[in-house]
């Protein structure tokens, strides 16, 4: 069995995002990067499936430039078997990314794709669903529980929806996007890092894949969100109740 796990390079989730003063872009100076946390959860889940089922080919793939090899190597160090870098221009929008993954999917022919429900930089939450649509296969999004059924032909998925946890069974191949509580990704071990150096990291360009993509989304400017005005401290419960009733008028 083969599982394809896309990994996006994003700023470390603990980084405070600062903007350049002209609002043209994020100030990346000194920012640490990491595997998108939801993608790391997807890779961890693939590794756990391998641990319970025996040898599985786990292929991590990233789209971008040289810098993405850092996250692919980290994925290999977590114990993925093979890495694929798709060279492409930066800042492609979700539909363009989904179209590239269609070509990767056709090249790799995985049994299914496990990927993060969204990237923590653009927070779009679109690529998995778009990829499933373009491939004409099923999807299970925001998955926090995953069980393979019937000789890996179907997957039973617990999905975190606004109304609570929903359970669906999806036919494989499918796109499964992972939510926070599916698992906790392992730390990369030193032997893992050493082994990762010997694992294959192939490169291919978008043109080699036979895909032409362009982003339709154009970012014109970035700005910080409006700051809430500083509030007041009240000293007693009576004062709080009075403010809520007579000043804010919300109760």
């Amino acid at each position, binding site marked *: 069995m083969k599982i394809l796990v896309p990994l996006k390079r994003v700023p470390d989730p603990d980084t405070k995002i600062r903007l350049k003063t002209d609002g043209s872009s*994020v100030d990346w100076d000194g920012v640490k990067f990491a595997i998108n946390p939801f993608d790391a959860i997807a890779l961890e889940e693939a590794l756990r499936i391998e641990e319970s089922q025996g040898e599985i080919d786990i292929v991590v793939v990233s789209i971008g430039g040289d810098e993405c090899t850092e996250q692919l190597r980290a994925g290999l160090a977590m114990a993925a078997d093979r890495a694929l870098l798709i060279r492409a221009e930066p800042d492609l929008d979700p539909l363009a990314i989904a179209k590239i993954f269609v070509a990767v999917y056709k090249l790799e022919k995985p049994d299914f794709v496990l990927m993060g429900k969204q990237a923590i930089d653009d*927070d779009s939450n679109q690529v998995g669903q778009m990829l499933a649509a*373009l491939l004409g296969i099923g999807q299970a999004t925001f998955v926090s529980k995953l069980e393979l059924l019937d000789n890996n032909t179907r997957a039973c998925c617990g999905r*975190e929806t606004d109304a609570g946890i*929903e359970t669906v069974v999806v036919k494989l191949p499918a796109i499964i996007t992972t939510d926070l509580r599916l698992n906790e990704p392992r730390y990369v071990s030193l032997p893992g890092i050493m082994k990762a150096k010997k694992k294959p990291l192939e490169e291919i360009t978008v043109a080699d894949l036979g895909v032409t993509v362009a982003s339709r989304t154009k970012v*014109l400017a970035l700005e910080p969100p409006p700051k809430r005005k500083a509030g007041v401290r009240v000293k007693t419960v009576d004062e709080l*109740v009075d403010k809520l009733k007579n000043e*804010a008028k919300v109760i």
Partner: protein
Amino acid sequence: MAKILVLAEHDEGQLKLATLSAMGFAHEVCADAGGSYDVLILGEGISAAVELLRGYGAASVLVADHAALKDPLADKYARVIDEVARVQNATMVVGAASTFSKDVLPRAAALLDAGMISDVNDVRSDGNDFIFKRIMFAGNVIATVKLDGALKFLTVRSAAFAPPPKVAGTSPITSVAVDAGKLPSQIEYVGREAKVAGRPDSTEARVVVSGGRAIKNAEDFEQLIGGLADVLGGAVGSSRALVDSGITPNSLQVGQTGKIVAPDLYIAVGISGAIQHMAGMKDTKVIVAINKDAEAPIFEIADYGLVGDVYQIVPELMEKLKK
């Protein structure tokens, strides 16, 4: 001229109020740039929701009522949305930024080869096109964006758009023919964890009372957070810390990785205010923070802060609110 298709959302036939915000967005765009909007609702046994949708001036309410659409499965729903958007010659397809829309709309967008913008919180017309603002980086950045293409898919933040004005008269109903045999069936609905009865959903409620690390166990959560919510007729929410420690279920979590809420009143009880949590509630109109740590970041965004032990303050607050 805009021709907007709004995807309505319901929970087993009960209309989700966030739908009205998506209609409000459509109303705003049409008032500004000309055009009209239709509402599409899918499901089975949805007549009550349909009736509610008819009172807001939509050109029509398109109803896809079929047993095959009883459960919100992305493969089937996206296919119906795809067909309806083509028939209607839609220029925009819009839904509330909910897990439902996020599951279904990108799939439909890709079927139509349309680009999509998630979490829109502002729109203005710009000649023949539109400029949107959207929220990125867990609420820490607002991006101004354009989206090329004759058809655009969007999800909108409900806090940013008021419901459209109610109108006299009702929108006509158009029935959408559903050929179940032609719908994909790759996903099978098994069921849903039973909802905790009695309290409203935090994404819909006017008041949300949320508990954090200061709450020591599930009984205390029910007594203090649930108790205060009940006094105010509100919903309960929770920080991620309580979910991780097993005190509250996942479905209560407010935050970047949980629910985005924007009630009139949000009471943060014993919540320090991590970025992750604040991303989920900072569009609230009035924020109250109760915390014994006077330095907690939540106080920086709270309209009213009260420093003290939640185990003393909350019972006193409940008592005084009951009077």
